[in-house]
């Protein structure tokens, strides 16, 4: 199955909940509301026509324009997109789904955004979601062990966010 067939199946099953993004260049994707993520995920995994049992990658993209010169040309509001790349090893097709999140879940910018964890569907999401949490500051609810994975446990900030400034020193060691 190619991308449009999979997305058609998804749209016929879920209706307006999923948003189709057809890209002219590169990958197209389907956008899913965050509270429907688990449901859609289970459908994608268990539907015999789709069988997207293999989760290649979970990652996030931080959309925040920090360059004031480019700000005028930027069409989007600041947000985070969590991207799931799925594939089926037996039917040999791939699929991309995305979930849009606010950068912070409150006004004061001290509560991380959250979305449900898919580690119950794909075990590989366990570590990959930890990585996203570590580097992007997205919390996954229902994750068995939500800790940092690449950075030390007491690291401050989430390095792959666009507004992240590296610390001058860490535990008495100069960083740069």
């Amino acid at each position: 199955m190619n991308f449009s067939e999979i997305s058609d199946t998804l749209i016929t099953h879920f209706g307006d909940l999923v948003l189709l993004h057809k890209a002219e260049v590169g990958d197209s994707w389907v956008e899913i509301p965050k509270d429907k993520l688990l449901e859609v995920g289970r459908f994608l995994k268990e539907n015999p026509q789709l069988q997207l049992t293999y989760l290649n990658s979970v990652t996030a993209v931080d959309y925040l324009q920090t360059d004031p010169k480019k700000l005028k040309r930027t069409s989007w509001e600041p947000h985070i997109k969590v991207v799931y790349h799925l594939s089926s090893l037996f039917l040999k097709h791939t699929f991309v789904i995305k979930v849009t999140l606010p950068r912070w879940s409150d006004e004061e910018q001290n509560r991380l955004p959250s979305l449900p964890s898919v580690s119950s569907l794909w075990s590989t999401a366990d570590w990959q979601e930890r990585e996203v949490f570590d580097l992007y500051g997205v919390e996954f609810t229902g994750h068995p062990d939500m800790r940092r994975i690449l950075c030390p446990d007491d690291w401050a900030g989430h390095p792959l966010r666009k507004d992240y400034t590296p610390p001058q020193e860490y535990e008495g060691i100069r960083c740069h």
Partner: protein
Amino acid sequence: MLDPTLINNKNIEYDAQTNEMLINMGPQHPSTHGVLRLIIRTDGEIVSEIQPHIGYLHRCAEKIGEHLSARQWIPYTDRMDYLAAMNMNLGWSLTVEKLLDHQVSKKLQHLRLMICELGRIASHLVGMGAYGLDLGTASPFFYAIREREKILDLFEKACGARLTFSYITPGGVMADIPEGWIDECKAFLDYFEPIIKQYHTLLTTNAIFLKRTCNLGILSKEKAIDYGCSGAVLRGSGIDYDLRRDGDPFYTEMYDGYDFEVIVEKEGDYPKDYPYPDVPREAQLGDCWHRFYVRMLEVIQSIKLIRQSFEKYQSIPEPIEKPLKLQQKLPKGEIYLETEAPRGQMGFGLFSEGDPIPWKVRARSSCFCNLSVLPELCRGVYLADIPSIVGSLDIMMGEIDR
């Protein structure tokens, strides 16, 4: 002794139990393949729980990628899987090319295939030798390095470097291979092919080796898929999937017209186009031995591929094209492409907002996913089995931590 501040409370609680012991393996340990740290809860010699801690080699390669143009990031891909840097270069180059929809010439594809398959051999050699070290025999490692050095000599002739090549770049390669290189490569393959038998004698069929690897760390098909395992770990579990055949058309085009087999067990046996040793009775599908064996057989398939590529490369007379510009403007869009690196499916993602510099770079590490299955495999095994299992996953910390 373990620093209590570095472990979470769960473990401290367990440490207080009388007959259980909490031990810390790594990050400086001979058999953790770099700076992997394993926190192991043991009852005597039996491991009851294992918890990998990674990140000691984290260099924020993805963050750096957001400040460099696509071609400038190539050296950073070298440093991910530094034992197979060519394949890392290829993965990123293809990702950039796919976003630009820039298909390279057929001759260049043959050249890249030749180089990457050599890289695969070199990487599997280290995997094989280091596995021997994990099991307590040092000699295979020296044999493997001896052969690998010859491959590195070839690479050095092609690009001047021996470890971090930065050879394959978006839109081409750094420079065409020099005159006479193919003959040297042929000579190497003629020398190397009969030697593989020695490795089978030294390790694959050695009685102690079988005792240490067979029926151990069995990874079922379902688990392998569930944990996103790839490469030899996936195929060692009996799943017939290789991106060189089943991957994105943009990547598999390289392998069009080549005759090679995906190494996977079919009906209790492996492809028989070469005098391989038989599968021993003790071995179970998905155990350490199968993962190791798949790697060994892939070396032979790579040799087959390289031999075919010589002729195809030489049959095209015109020179290869120049690579893309250093500050090549990228179209707005995103792309995610996986290639079959020696250690599994290395995925590169490129999210572009229309600048020469990518908005975001993603590197999906195959070893990262392969390693995540370790706690699953290491439940109830002996302490001495941990090196066997970690070694059979053939991890590369540079790639895991990025």
